[in-house]
């Protein structure tokens, strides 16, 4: 009875999904605009060199404006009517499988639309300056537009298949952009690695879709969510884990995290947009979007939380050991997404919190990356923080916006990271029993470590001795640090404002949580936590302060060597080696794979082909070798005919006696 009632309740919920009308009828324009930009730039080629970057910016800005319009159009509606669908065209129709290319306009997807097009527009504008010296700037904007279009398909699609479309679409855009300077072998290799590790996750996502189709006959969100209760608990667990595998690939979570730091080979605006603010958070979106499925599988959610907690610590630990400004930020991204994954793994107590941290992270991490890009821009593309130092007075705007981002990420009270990260740590401690201690403890420890490595990064870059004065860059030039042009600094300032205010705006009065309710359900407060609510922020601030102090003691108050010390303790060595993730991948997959492929080539040439040629030789008479087949052709032909005839007779006999 209760099952039936629940099913009816969810069906009623599904019935509220309305068709999009009015201004929302053209929601496909959100995707079409940047897609058109990409198409024009790619087909137009060099002819668009003069204005290509402007078109690239314009399409995304227009998408953002239209997205804003849709947002207000939706807030005008009754909260129960805020989930709307728009059919665009029938995509893959074969009997029971009917995949439409349709859009789902709801608070969750519109939130992402604003994030992707908003931050996307800022980074497009920034790139006008950052890429101004690159002969292929137009191509860069084409790929960025392609990315925005694919990311919008990912978040706006109304089925798991359209999600998959966008999912792999952003993957290929990411591939193209990591390999943008493809004459550099490291960039080409990193791009390939990113795509491959993502594809491992994609297979998981694909199999989850197969399971949904097998058991429910549909892949559309509305129907899947309404009928998820019909799935057996084993299938539910399988689907949650397979979706998680997909999320791990896209979001750089353990065990598929190793590609993300390498992806920093791409131009820095790419790192900011794709590998920090938007694409890599798609895994969080996936879990949050699939909340009706995860709600039904506590075991699946537990695994999600474990992966999140583990990854957030892995990211922190490695982030402490790197000297490359972008790689530190990359591992910081791994770690911050770990927080988000941990949050959405908590289920109804955390979905909205994960999204909130995702949004604030979008501001401050994009800002930090753009700041890093601005530093590199003024420092001959140098990335080694040991070669920086004292840059504050040479690039004050960059330094101030970067430090604001830094304060936000470490959770300085009042800034946006404080609201979003603290909420997650509290929710983690809000779990019952050992879970509260383990997950809460991991999140708390991570906060301290984040404070440590980020403080180290800021001190080494902007303060202290000007270590670059006595050095030259790899191409032999002296460093002449300077502030970036305003086309770059203005986006940084805007993002810094977001880093300050977004958290308060989202969290105070539960603005964001309430807005997301139609998509994610109500946020459950944790009642049976292992620590009192009031205690958690205090502990967090204490640990953050400890992290900052430790960093100051280590690198702030004494000179830092320009080359990194070689003789270091085992943990540092392990962290510098990415906790051996690459070594493990290499030993488990890459080398055995290469060996297997080579062995198979040998088998195919000597074994399979040899066997077949041997048979042919036998048929053609003892002396018939393939190299002599030219002369022995007629004879083999005759023998084959004979063989064929024998078979004819055999067939006839079979028919007779059967």
């Amino acid at each position: 009875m209760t099952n039936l009632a629940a099913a009816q309740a969810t069906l009623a919920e599904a019935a509220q999904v309305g068709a999009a009308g009015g201004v929302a009828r053209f929601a496909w324009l959100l995707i079409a605009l940047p897609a058109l930009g990409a198409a024009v730039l790619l087909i137009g080629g060099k002819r668009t060199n003069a204005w290509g970057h402007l078109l690239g910016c314009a399409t995304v800005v227009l998408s953002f404006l239209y997205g804003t319009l849709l947002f207000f159009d939706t807030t005008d509606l009754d909260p129960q009517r805020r989930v709307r669908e728009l059919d665009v065209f029938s995509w893959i129709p074969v009997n029971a499988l009917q995949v439409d290319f349709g859009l789902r306009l709801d608070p969750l997807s519109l939130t992402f639309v604003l994030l992707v097009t908003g931050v996307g527009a800022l980074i497009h504008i920034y790139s006008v300056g950052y890429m101004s010296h690159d002969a292929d700037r137009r191509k860069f904007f084409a790929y960025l537009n392609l990315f925005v279009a694919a990311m919008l398909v990912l978040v706006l699609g109304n089925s798991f298949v359209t999600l998959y479309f966008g999912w792999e679409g952003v993957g290929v855009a990411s591939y193209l952009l990591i390999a943008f300077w493809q004459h550099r072998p490291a960039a080409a290799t990193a791009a390939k690695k990113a795509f491959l590790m993502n594809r491992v996750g994609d297979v998981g996502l694909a199999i989850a879709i197969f399971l949904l189709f097998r058991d429910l006959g549909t892949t559309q969100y509305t129907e899947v969510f309404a009928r998820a209760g019909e799935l057996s608990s084993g299938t539910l667990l399988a689907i949650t884990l397979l979706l998680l595998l997909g999320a791990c690939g896209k979001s750089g979570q353990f065990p598929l995290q190793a590609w993300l730091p390498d992806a920093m080979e791409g131009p820095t605006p790419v790192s900011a947009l794709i590998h920090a603010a938007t694409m890599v958070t798609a895994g969080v979106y996936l879990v949050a979007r699939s909340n009706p499925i995860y709600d039904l599988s506590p075991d699946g959610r537990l695994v999600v939380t474990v992966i999140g907690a583990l990854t957030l610590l892995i990211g922190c630990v490695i982030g402490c050991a790197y000297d490359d400004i972008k790689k530190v930020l990359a591992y910081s991204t791994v770690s911050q997404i770990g927080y988000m994954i941990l949050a959405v793994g908590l289920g109804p107590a955390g979905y909205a919190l994960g999204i909130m941290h995702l949004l604030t992270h979008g501001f401050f991490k994009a800002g930090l990356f753009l700041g890093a890009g601005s530093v590199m821009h003024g420092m001959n593309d140098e990335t080694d923080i040991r070669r920086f130092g004292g840059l504050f007075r040479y690039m004050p705007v960059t330094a101030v916006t970067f430090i604001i981002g830094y304060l936000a990420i470490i959770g300085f009270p009042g800034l946006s990271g404080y609201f979003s990260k603290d909420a997650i740590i509290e929710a983690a401690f809000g779990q019952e029993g050992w879970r509260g201690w383990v997950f809460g403890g991991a999140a708390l420890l991570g906060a301290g470590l984040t404070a440590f490595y980020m403080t180290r990064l800021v001190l080494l870059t902007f303060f202290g001795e000007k270590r670059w004065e006595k050095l030259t860059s790899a191409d032999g030039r002296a460093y002449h640090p300077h502030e970036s042009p305003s086309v770059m600094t203005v986006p940084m300032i805007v993002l810094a404002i977001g880093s300050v205010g977004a958290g308060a705006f989202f969290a105070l009065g539960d603005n964001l949580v309430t807005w997301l309710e139609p998509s994610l359900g109500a946020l459950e407060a944790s009642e049976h936590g292992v620590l009192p609510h009031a205690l958690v922020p205090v502990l967090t601030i204490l640990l953050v302060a400890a992290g900052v102090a430790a960093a100051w003691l280590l690198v702030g108050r004494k000179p830092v060597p320009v080359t990194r010390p070689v003789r270091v303790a085992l943990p540092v060595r392990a962290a510098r080696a990415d906790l051996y993730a690459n070594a493990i991948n290499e030993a488990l997959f890459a080398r055995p794979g290469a060996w297997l492929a080579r062995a198979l080539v040998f088998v195919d040439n000597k074994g399979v082909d040899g066997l077949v040629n041997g048979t042919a030789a036998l048929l053609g008479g003892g002396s018939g070798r393939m190299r002599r087949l030219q002369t022995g052709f007629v004879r083999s032909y005759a023998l084959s005919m004979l063989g064929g005839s024998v078979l004819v007779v055999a067939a006839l006999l079979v028919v007779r006696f059967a």
Partner: protein
Amino acid sequence: MNQSGSVLLLVLLLVPLVGGLVVAVLGRGGRAERAAKLTALGFSLVELVVAIATWVGYDPAGARLQLTFSADWIPPLGVRFSLGVDGIALVMLALIAVLVPIVIGGSWAEKLPEGRTAAGFFALLLLMEAGMVGVFAATDVFLFYVFFEAVLVPMYFLIGRFGGPRRQYAAVKFFLYSLLGGLIMLASVIGVYVVGAERLGTGTFDWATLVTVVKDAPASTQIWLFLGFFVAFAIKAPLVPLHTWLPDAGAEAPVGAGVLLVGVLDKIGTFGFLRYCLPLFPVASQELAPLVLVLSVAGVLYGSLLAVAQSDLKRFVAYTSIAHFGFIALGVFAFSSQAQAGAVLYMVNHGISTGMLFLVIAMVMARGGSRTISDYGGMAKLTPVLGGLFLVAGLSSLALPGTNSFVSEFLVLIGSFPNAPVYTVLAAFGMVLAALYVLWVYQQIMQGPVRGNALVGLAGGPGAAVNPDSDTARASVSDLSRREVAVLAPLVALVLVLGFYPKPVLDVITPSVNATMSEVGLSDPVTVQEGNSR
């Protein structure tokens, strides 16, 4: 003559046949090369128009076989000259008609071996086209067999006379494999005739008639007859371990023949599974399906791994195709309408994407003069358009959503999963390997520093780095010509159109697949459920 029906398919058969003969005659003078090429292109375009008319004339909701034409041929044996199409054959005919003009354009500047004339080459291409049309349009089993064997002849000469250094070896190997398969099939064709005659009282090779009676034959009979067809088809659409002729043939064939060989000719095998193995021998098909599924998945993984390790560009394409044929066979024998529709669409899409890959690689080789992958490096820097189109072909090959191949691969996998979950999951890992082999080859040829070894005029010693901005580099390697762009542009358009809007093609395929499913006597594992609004 007792004949009836529409002549549309007869015209479709005759246009390239006549064209081939005209071109052959035209080319007798040494200076008529250009005339021969233009004539060949003209006939192939006329054929395209006829094919469009055929497409328009076909009613997806209509009879099982349409546009039928039938005439007496060998009355004592009940052999008739019967043509007709279902949706599956129709999309293959359309593929042929689209590919041949592109192939002719792509072969325009083909460097032929000494002593060979362009007229001979282009005449053989058109004769190939006629043969392939016959194979897909025949509805008389004996006629099918005749075309099945006849099509070997032009391909044999295309490889053996116009191919690469080891063309003789490759052509003979191709011919023997196919011939052996054909002879085994002949045994089964006769067997089917005998079974039909026993049950009907009169002998016939008419497919539609035989389908109604052979399916009731005892299981053991069906299994033997099935195997006869199956071996022939498994050689054509090479399933491991019968595949080893393909890398040799694909590598030695001139590019135009290679496109038609891998893009269309090999599909005779998978088409044969659907048209002959399944409806004629439903019991055997179901009984032996596990065996075929094992071979399919083995093909996906084995072909992919071998593709990763290839050092020769053309053999690389051949091995990727072996992996793709594995997917197609999986879709056919997983017995769901989604998987089979996916398999049919896959046959079309693979023709498009592998055709494009073959052509792009030929353009790379025309500039570098080498088939060896490691002779190249950083080419995208010098030839960005070629680099971009190489990637488009590659992304289609790895079934990226938005490209044609995604739709078919997705349909095959999602449709196979309910009946064959383990095989499907294993095959799904072929997706990772596909990404590996495509991106790895792309990286070696197009990315990294420009290396001059193979690029004409850039010789700076083996593997030596070359400054891409130097004048010699720019002068010696040019990007795509207008002709080359015109050859690839329609393929790019097809890749995208079929990626985003495959519905018109699926609407043609699906009813025929449904008919095939009911001929096998099976229903879909997943049906429209109550409560689903769509």
